[in-house]
Each structure stands twice: as C-alpha cells, then as structure tokens.
C-alpha cells in the first residue's frame, strides 16, 4: 500500500549528455552509484517520497531525459507537465556549463507563459581537481536566472538529498502560497489525500493553464 503523501510534484532532470543526470537520480531514488550507466535514450522515470517536515511527505515523480540534442523533439514533450527541474552541468566540463543558458531557453519556449522552478546543479563535485567551472561563476549565473545553485556528487553522495529536498521545499512553499496552483489537465502538481489539512491552493482551479494549446 502506498504511503500517504500531501502532494505529488513532477520534476524533470535536464542538461548535456554525460553530465551525470541518470547517476544523480539513481543515487537519490535507489541509494546507489553505478560506475557505468548506459546513455539514456528517450526518457526514463523514477519516483521517491521525501519528507519535508515531520509527517509531511511529497511524492516526487522524476523524469530522466536524454541529453543529446537529437532527442529534443521527444524529451521536450515532458517539460510542460513538470513543476520543477534540476538543470545539471558537469563542473569538469566547461562546455556543459556554457550550455546552461541554451537549456533554459529551450525549456522556456516550451512551457511559456508558465515556468519551471529550476535549481542549477554543478555535478561531479568529487572531481574538484579537474574543475573547469568555479563555484563563484556558477553562483553568479544561477543568481542571474533566479535559481539556487548547489554542487553535488552522485559518487560520494554529496548534497544529493539536499538538491532534491531543497527544490521540493521551495516548490511546496510556492504551492502553499498559491503562487503555483493545481490545475486540471496539468500533471506538475497533484494533491494527495490528507484529512484535516486543506490549503486554499488545493482546490482545483480551472482557469486553464493549457491556454497555449
């Protein structure tokens, strides 16, 4: 029987090929690190519960996407139903950092006029000696786009929990404040079954988020 959760958030993980998207998700959902993982083609799906406050659980549905540009026409179909996202680059690969802007543009175009709450993730921080992107410049870029920045390592399990949990908390706050509302026909946020706790934003708003379609 499935544990009770307050909300379900759908997250998407994007970024260049080989920045470590699948490994980060596997570490988070399965608690293990695979030395070798097949290149993702298409889209994979994972889920996990996180407890943001004692007794308050959020179910995360996490979409893992292929990084190569060639698969964009398939992967971008998943952007629209995501409320949050982790945008990864590899701190040892400058190019993947330079492409962050492009990834943001790419998603923006496909979810307009709505937004995905992104966190910028500098991955593979265990490889500090090979670092090509300083923490300072990454923080600056993140700030310029209104994102938080965090450095993670799937191999050494550094900040993996924190990256997902912090993002989940931020989204939770936005939902609680009503800045993000549950909409019929949109899968980004769904309400669970929790008696005695009713937030105003839990009522289904029909003002259509799908207006673009």
């Amino acid at each position, binding site marked *: 029987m499935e544990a009770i959760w307050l909300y379900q958030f759908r997250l998407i993980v994007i970024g260049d090929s*080989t920045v470590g998207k699948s490994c980060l998700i596997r570490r988070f959902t399965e608690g293990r690190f695979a030395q*070798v993982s097949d*290149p993702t*083609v*298409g889209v994979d799906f994972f889920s996990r519960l996180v407890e943001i406050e004692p007794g308050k659980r959020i179910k995360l549905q996490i979409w893992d996407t292929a990084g*190569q540009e*060639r698969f964009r026409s398939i992967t971008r*179909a998943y952007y629209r139903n995501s409320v949050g996202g982790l945008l990864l680059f590899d701190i040892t690969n400058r190019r993947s950092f330079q492409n962050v802007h492009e990834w943001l543009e790419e998603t923006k175009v496909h979810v307009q006029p709505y937004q995905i709450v992104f966190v910028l993730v500098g991955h593979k921080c265990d490889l500090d000696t090979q670092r090509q992107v300083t923490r300072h410049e990454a923080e600056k870029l993140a700030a310029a786009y209104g994102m938080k920045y965090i450095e993670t390592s799937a191999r050494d399990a550094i900040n993996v929990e924190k990256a997902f949990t912090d993002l989940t908390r931020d989204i939770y706050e936005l939902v609680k404040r009503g800045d993000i509302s549950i909409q019929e026909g949109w*899968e980004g946020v769904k309400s669970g079954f929790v008696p005695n706790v009713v937030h105003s934003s839990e009522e289904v708003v029909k003002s259509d988020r799908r207006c673009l*379609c």
Partner: protein
Amino acid sequence: MVWAGDEYFRMKLQWKSVSEEQERRNSLLRGYRSLIERDVSRTDRSNKFYQGSENPALVLLHDVLMTYCVYNFDLGYVQGMSDLLSPILYVTQNEVDAFWCFAGFMELVHHNFEESQESMKRQLAQLALLLRVLDPPLCDFLDSKESGSLCFCFRWLLIWFKREFAFEDVLQLWEVLWTGLPCPSFHLLVACGILDSEREALMNSGFGFSEILKHINELTMKMNVEETLSRAEALYRQLAASPELPRNVQELLGLGGPAGGSPPATPPPPHSAGPAPELELMGSVSPPQPDSSIEILPPEEPPTARSPPP
C-alpha cells in the same frame, strides 16, 4: 574483400589525420568525438568482451563509430548507435567487417536517428495502428491513460530492443529481424507481442501515464526472447489470416490483399500509401506527409513542440 578494407582505412585516416588545431575549429567533429569517447566507456561494459579499462575492444568500438561519422557526416553520431555496433563487433571481432556490417544495419535504421525524429514518430503511429487492430481494449485503456501515443516504446524501436534483452538474446532477435521474415516491420509485431504479454499487468494495475512508462522500462532483461518471437510470429499469422485487414496494415506488413493484384510481400517497408480505405487511426506509411492526427507524444504537449524549430 581487400577493397572494403582499403575503403574503411581511407575513411579512418580522414578523422585520424585531423590535427588538434583543426579540430579546435570543428565543433561538430569535436562534439561527436567527445560523445563517442564517453559513450564507448559506458556501453556493455559488464560484457566480458568490453570489460576492463585497457580493453582493445573499446578502441575498436570508438574507431568504428568515428569512421561511421566520416562515412555519414550528415547523420554523425547519435546516442544509441554504440548499442547497435557493440553486438556486431562482438560477433565479427574484426574492425573492417564490423564497420561494414554496422553501416549495413544503419541503412535499415538511420532514419531513427535523424533530428526530426519523423521516422520514430511514424513507427510509433504504425505500432499504434497494429495494436488497434490486434487489441482494441488495450488501445482504449492506453488512450484513457494518455499513453495511446505509445511513447513508452520509444527505446524499443530506436535501438531494436537492445536494452530490453540479454546480450545473447539480442543477437538472436536481430538475426531474425534482419531476415525480413516473416514480414517487413516485424519489429513492430515484436513490440505488439511484448505489449500483449503485459496487457493484464497493465490493464489491471491502475497505472497512470508515468507508471506505464516505468513498468515498460522495468521489463528490461526480464523477458524471454524465444517466447517474445513466438508471440510476434503468432500475431503475424493471425493478421495474415484475417480476412478484413485494413489496407494500411496490409501494406505495413507486406501482405497482398486477397482482392486481387496487390503488391507482393517485398521486404523494405512500403514507401507509398495506397488510396484504399484505411483504418481511421492512420499510421500513414508514406514518408513525411504531415499528419496532425499522428499523436506520438504525450498528449499534454503543446502543438509548438511537435514541429521542430526551423
């Protein structure tokens, strides 16, 4: 076959002789090279043939993929190709043979890797067409879960089930598919066979869109290839014996219509769709006919996403 080797090494020399200086000004080649390097290091590494960091087979995998880039530079390297080459190299154990076999295989599937993904969309539509004929209740169920586009079968079709079966089983499966027997597009019937064997699990599950994709992805390495092939062949026989098969299904499977004079069952998938009545689902078989009714992606997708940017 001296010439095949000559031709191969001539092309290999082309990328081998690109200096660092030159490559700095060739971002496309640089991108392909770096992606190939990284994918080679994570393709079938648990297979004995590719184990260990100093394994010479890794160099061959890399070199053949790089040479294929030069051979077909418009296509270049796309993720998934290393999956297609790996079993071929394992069987041939020879660089030149592996290259030409791979190039031959790519003749069949290179459309899968094109930027527009039109071929993938078309095949998913064709799969939906077959499934609609074979199992309407399952189709209705998937439709009701916004999964009627069958996008969860993307990986199956892209790399011909390479990730779904054990390595040895993939060899067997591909050999069958390469024969073009019992019909063209048999890989779609293999997909139907797998869906058929999972129909109860799917329909009795209460799964939504995400869970269906997860369930399908998790079938990997759990399926029996013999059983899957038998099932697919049984579906073919069932369709071939069916008296009222929609015209577009007949064409897809190379079945001559019973009502006289239809084209014989020649291997490559037909390139023209006849004007005969078709099932309303319309997996159009003809190339890039824009068809707004082909729903291959999650239906939530906005229309803008369906056509790639210019």
